[in-house]
């Protein structure tokens, strides 16, 4: 049956919509990066987090930028006539030579903190990356493949979730004997990926029914391709959040283990410094800075990761952004037009 429609004429042109960004790829990429920079500048949490993290990263990468001594160097104090040998310099207060004083054995505290930064940052970043990567592969595959494989992977994940972390860590570390950074990374990764895997699996499951994944399957793509190329790139913001969360976890758990004495006591790291400070009675000896400063650094680095986590959440989801007081009042004023009373409820934060 012939259709009385001529399709060559009268075809409406698919007029392109005026789009947000002009120009070819390069300009678009630059514009996107520019938007990110602006977003970071505007968000207070992001700015604080970026500054803190940048500071620590700089010190970790180039400790030479900051003047410090060898942390194992022993400084000697004043020679006294009745001493057989020169005692170690024990200084609780900051001085020109020792910005944070020294510890009970005459080591410079500031140097320990500076040199220890690298170990902690390596621990945080590597553990964060490894944990997130393993969790990504396991979680997303479980969600996408479903059925039998989902069941198998879930059993593995849940087993690791249920096992109590610290006892397991203690056992493993004791069994392995030595416990430098590498061992810590290994142990934290093995015990840490399962929680993230669960999270990513949930997210992947909600994405699984999106038509573009089905479209890729119907197009003939292999499952592996769909998971890696079609699915995971759409989860980048969650993956970033997981990485930051895992890095935070690594900093706290790793330093915690070292503090308990399960780390390598001869390594220079904030956690081990804390361990020595605590086991040698720093507070009783009045060496407050020795005890407090490494802990403060741990807290600050942890805070940096946490701040960045919140910040990226807010940047990607405008609904989470805090409505600051000034903006709220301006919006409320506009809500009540000429002559109307100000409705107090309109100044609600979204």
């Amino acid at each position, binding site marked *: 049956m012939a259709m009385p*429609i001529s399709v060559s004429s009268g075809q409406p042109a698919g*007029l392109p919509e005026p789009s947000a960004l002009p120009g070819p790829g390069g300009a678009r990429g630059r514009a996107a990066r520019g938007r990110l920079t602006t977003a970071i500048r505007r968000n207070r949490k992001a700015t604080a987090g970026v500054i803190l993290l940048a500071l620590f990263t700089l010190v970790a990468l180039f400790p030479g930028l900051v003047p410090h001594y060898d942390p194992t160097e022993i400084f000697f104090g004043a020679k006294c006539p009745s001493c057989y040998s020169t005692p170690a310099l024990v200084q609780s207060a900051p001085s020109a030579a020792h910005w944070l004083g020294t510890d009970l054995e005459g080591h410079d505290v500031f140097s320990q903190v500076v040199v220890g930064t690298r170990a902690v940052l390596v621990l945080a970043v590597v553990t964060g990356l490894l944990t997130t990567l393993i969790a990504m592969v396991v979680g997303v595959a479980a969600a996408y493949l479903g059925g039998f494989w989902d069941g198998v992977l879930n059993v593995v994940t849940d087993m690791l979730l249920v096992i109590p972390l610290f006892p397991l860590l203690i056992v493993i570390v004791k069994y392995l004997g030595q416990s430098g950074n590498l061992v810590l990374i290994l142990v934290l990764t093995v015990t840490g990926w399962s929680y993230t895997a669960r999270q990513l699996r949930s997210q992947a499951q909600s994405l699984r029914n999106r038509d573009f994944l089905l479209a890729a399957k119907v197009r003939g793509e292999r499952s592996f391709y769909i998971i890696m190329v079609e699915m995971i790139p759409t989860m980048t913001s969650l993956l970033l959040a997981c990485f930051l969360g895992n890095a935070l976890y690594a900093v706290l758990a790793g330093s915690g283990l070292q503090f308990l004495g399960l780390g390598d006591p001869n390594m220079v790291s904030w956690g081990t410094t804390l361990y020595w400070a605590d086991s040698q009675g720093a507070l009783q000896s009045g060496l407050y800075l020795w005890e407090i400063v490494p802990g403060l650094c741990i807290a600050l680095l942890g805070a940096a990761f946490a701040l960045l986590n919140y910040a990226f959440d807010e940047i990607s989801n405008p609904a989470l952004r805090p409505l600051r007081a000034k903006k709220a009042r301006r*919006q409320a004023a506009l*809500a009540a*037009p000429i002559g*109307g009373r100000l409705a107090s409820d309109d100044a609600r934060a979204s």
Partner: protein
Amino acid sequence: MTHALADDPRGLARSHPSHGPLLEVRDLSVEYLLEQAVINAVDHVSLDVGAGEFLAIVGESGCGKSTLLFAIARLLYPPAAITGGSVTFQGRNLVGLTETDLSAVRWKDMSVVMQSAMNALNPVLSVAAQFRDAMRAHGVTSKQEIDKRSAEVLRMVGIDPVHLKSYPHQLSGGMRQRAMIAMAMLFTPELIIMDEPTSALDVVAQRSLMAQIKELQRTLGFAVIFVTHDMSLVSHFSDRLMVMYAGQVSEVGRTRQVFDAPKHPYTVGLMDAFPSIRGPRVPLMGIPGSPPDLARPPEGCRFAPRCPKVMPRCETSLPPLYQVEGVGVRCFLYDDGGAR
């Protein structure tokens, strides 16, 4: 159509607007105040609804019809804000009222039916529980009265009151929508606002729901503002029809008039975009292009970039709403009071 004839406690006039409009919207403007832009979603819209009248607001996605509806019902939250105009309902300007004052009006005199019952009904409460919540919120406490009224409104919409015990997921789509409408009628309001209540339904259920709404309106005498993107749905049910485009009113008038003789080129294009089931099979064009970006609305007529009858002045100045044969048209073609 069998249902108990409901009582008519207010003795309302039946679809004859008697004394002054029930709802008067004048120059209402709504903007979305975003960080990167201000979106002019509704631009100086005026409309009247008389007692017992059925007004349909028609437009495509992004035209501002839902925003307008929520503004009238005062359900907008930041970043949306009413930036101008008035909404006078039963003589009171709703814009600027506090939540306390508004809650006196809400549901008693004006109620809202949302687009998707599955989203609007609480999934963990039974239908009876939701009706009870609504009634208690407005001061009705006697259990007898609540039960009696709940059963009554369900019967009005054609649902057996035995379903009061059901949860929303146990009802079919059509029944859920009817339950929503029943809830909106608990206090026999003067005005019921409906935001695309039939879009989630199949075509047969849609038709019967529309007919039901019309029948209830005839019997109980409430006014209806019905927002939809599907003109043909309301063609047989609405008294007046308002076509919106890009946040503005482009044509408004009696339904049959607008349908039989559309004046605005957008309305003409829209009508032409409906393939007919029974008429002759002809090739159709649709309307090329897309609606304008409301963060940077064009100067002049907002439909000019897509208008087949565009003139030079359309691009520089905004046409006012001309009155032609009782129909309002925002188009320079009618500048001298007649079609060209």
